[in-house]
């Protein structure tokens, strides 16, 4: 039972993390190659506060605020550069974060932070909380999609110049997306810390950033159910493929490539195409 609980918790955290990136990249169209940084900020915040005696639940809001603040700063910086530089700038932020954290002794340096105090909720309780927050993030995403914010985001993602001509304060909306997405990533980071009881800078590097981006794209950029499923599946892929073991990364890389090659709109796109092909035979083709 413990193994399954741990697995579910991992999945919930990964889904939270992926959905938070989906807000920035999926809804608002801003490619971030450094999203793991914000999970890292949340994780380290929770770790430091936890070791200082704060209860787990109290670390959550602080983790979110700090991650969100950094997110706004990065967002402001990203507004200055051209769109195709945004990806590389966010990548740079990621390397900067890892690089700085690794050199600071008070943050654990190369060894990271270990012996995080227990969250006191019990394995099942912690998992339940993670799942609840995960559902919350999903619900928030769906709400945003239906609201006018979601409609504006959609417009910005497709054609931000036209949105300006429609009177939309595009920079402010992009910042809003960054702030929300990074804060939620920070929350997933706090959960991460207490789930693993140990964190190190290399857990929040470039590879992790592109992993979460792949989950979002694999699921279908912008599609909340797609991203949930993709994140849930891909996060426990190593576990699923224990049989294949040595080849799991090869499979992972191959899957990504094939999905992009044959269904660029991810699993959500596949699902849509499958459902329309099922309908057609009934209605008859012209």
């Amino acid at each position, binding site marked *: 039972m413990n193994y399954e609980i741990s697995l579910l918790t991992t999945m919930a955290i990964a889904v939270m993390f992926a959905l938070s990136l989906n807000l920035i990249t999926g809804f608002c169209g801003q490619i971030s190659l450094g999203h793991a940084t914000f999970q890292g900020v949340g994780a380290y915040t929770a770790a430091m506060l936890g070791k200082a005696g704060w209860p787990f639940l109290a670390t959550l809001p602080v983790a979110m605020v700090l991650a969100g603040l950094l997110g706004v700063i990065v967002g402001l910086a990203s507004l200055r550069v051209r769109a*195709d530089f945004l990806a590389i700038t966010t990548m740079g932020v990621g390397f900067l974060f890892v690089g700085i954290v690794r050199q600071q002794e008070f943050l654990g340096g190369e060894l990271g932070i270990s012996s995080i105090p227990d969250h006191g909720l019990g394995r099942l309780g912690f998992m339940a909380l993670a799942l609840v927050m995960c559902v919350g993030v999903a619900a928030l995403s769906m709400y945003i999609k239906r609201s006018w914010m979601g409609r504006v985001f959609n417009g910005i993602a497709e054609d931000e110049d036209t949105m300006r001509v429609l009177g939309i304060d595009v920079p402010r909306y992009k910042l809003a997306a960054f702030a929300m997405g990074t804060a939620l990533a920070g929350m997933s980071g706090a959960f991460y810390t207490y789930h693993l009881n140990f964190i190190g800078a290399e857990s929040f590097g470039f590879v992790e950033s592109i992993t979460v981006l792949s989950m979002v794209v694999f699921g279908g950029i912008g599609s909340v159910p797609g991203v949930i499923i993709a994140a849930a599946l891909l996060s426990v892929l190593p576990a699923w493929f224990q049989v294949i073991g040595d080849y799991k990364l090869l499979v992972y890389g191959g899957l990504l490539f094939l999905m992009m090659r044959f269904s660029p709109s991810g699993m959500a796109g596949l699902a849509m195409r499958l459902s329309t092909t099922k309908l057609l035979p009934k209605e008859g083709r012209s």
Partner: protein
Amino acid sequence: MLAIELIAQGLIQGSIYALVALGLTLVYGLLRILHVAHAALFTLGGYVGVLVCNASGNLPLGFFCAALVSGLGGVVMFRLAYQPLLNQPPYVALIASIGLFIASEEAFRIIFGAQGMSFNTPSLEQQFSIGGLQFKLAELLVMLSTAAIIGVLAFLQSRTRVGIACQATVSDPQMAQSFGISLRQVRDINFFVGSALAGFAGVWVALLNNLVEPTMGSVPSYKALAIIVLGGLGSVPGTLTAALLLGVIEAFGTIYLGGILDRNAIAFAFLIAVLMVRPQGLFARS
């Protein structure tokens, strides 16, 4: 004395970066794709170089084969992965590239083992002394060959029909076709040349470290992404300058900023600092 040593070190490292970044800038300038999988071609070149040299005892042959195989590998990547995705939003090609990159690294690991390979008889080890500094012959040659290659490339780009057409495709694809060279040919050429350069660089690194291992491509490629932004897209002189500059800044930065940042972060700190001051990059063309 120390300063000059650092500058020399920086130029050597910068030459490697330049070779890798050139390939990337040719691709990015052309297709606006973040060709992360470029790293795999670098590593491939290293392996081919070592294998051929060990088998034949002939180092120049090793270089030649590495460049050839990598060049062809690059064209294959283009045809397989990027060409079909040209009409898709940019993140699709990026994720496909990431998938290829992960799969390639894994393939190298599975085929050649994680420990890596070395040259049976390391060569170009002779020491030279110039102006009081010690150089290995390999280090001198890598700088010279980079200079020679850049020179040839710059000449080809500005004086030959093919070269001008390549430049034109960046800004004006239609015009390139009026040179009687098809878009497809230009792209093939760009990928071939750029990838061959990466393969060539891979052999040099294998020589300098006497080691080739599966993950050796990642760090140079990430930095190359930063370099192409700094250097101005598609600009050969700009990329060269940015690469050399980065090499030198890293050399100094590791000494003076080593307490705060680690080596890789320095590259990106430099990038972000530059972009904040000049959002269009160091050598952006109008």
